[in-house]
């Protein structure tokens, strides 16, 4: 695949940044001339991944969230959301629909939603080191 453009950003794991980060990634990715639906899909997956960093990775603390968004000539958007937080001991368990380690008003659907609105989802995690979530989204609209 041939990368045509790339965005990198680093921001604090404060919940007020959830809106900013999904908007920024969607705005950057929109150079691929996507539909409103596809832009909504990107906003949704970024929102879920960033919320996981804030709620789980940096629970009770503030850390940095690192996002890379690359657009490829083939019409693919790749978003990577990385943290240096607590990590996930059992990724398979964490990805089960409706599973949540927190309870309260957490639905346990974060990874399910990310899977549902993307074409490929990869989660790499190491307890005590951090988590990297990589999401590929194929844009069916016109390619630049």
């Amino acid at each position: 695949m041939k990368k045509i453009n790339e965005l990198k950003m680093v921001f604090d794991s404060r919940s007020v940044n959830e809106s900013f980060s999904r908007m920024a990634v969607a705005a950057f990715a929109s150079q691929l001339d996507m539909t409103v639906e596809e832009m909504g899909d990107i906003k949704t997956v970024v929102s879920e991944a960033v919320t996981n960093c804030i709620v789980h990775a940096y629970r009770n603390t503030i850390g940095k969230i690192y996002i890379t968004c690359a657009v490829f000539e083939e019409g693919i958007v790749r978003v990577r959301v990385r943290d240096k937080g607590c990590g996930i001991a059992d990724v398979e368990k964490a990805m089960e629909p409706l599973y949540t380690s927190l309870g309260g008003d957490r639905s346990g659907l974060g990874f399910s939603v990310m899977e549902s609105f993307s074409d490929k989802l990869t989660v790499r995690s190491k307890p005590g080191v951090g988590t990297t979530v990589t999401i590929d989204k194929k844009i069916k609209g016109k390619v630049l």
Partner: protein
Amino acid sequence: MPVTIKTKQNTIYAYLKGEIDHHTAPELRNTIDDAIIMNETSQMLVLDFSGVTFMDSSGVGLVMGRYRLASSKGKKLRVDNLSERDYKIMKMSGIEKLAQINKVKE
């Protein structure tokens, strides 16, 4: 306010506005929960999503939590005017087995 509460004929209507995510959900939750607790005689809670411009799975958590509180007070829950996307996210939770959920009318 990102939510407006109206009561009519034993029904509480909560009209949600703007974006629902983990950051905005607590304020919505508190306002709706106050309305559920204060309106003892109401038998129904309607969450109206017509003013919602974005929602992630935090919106599902918000609805599930309100369902639990409303049920414990003997009230039913209905969710109205969900966008196609929000309806799809809502259904991942199985909430439609517990409460009526309706898409926005075309």
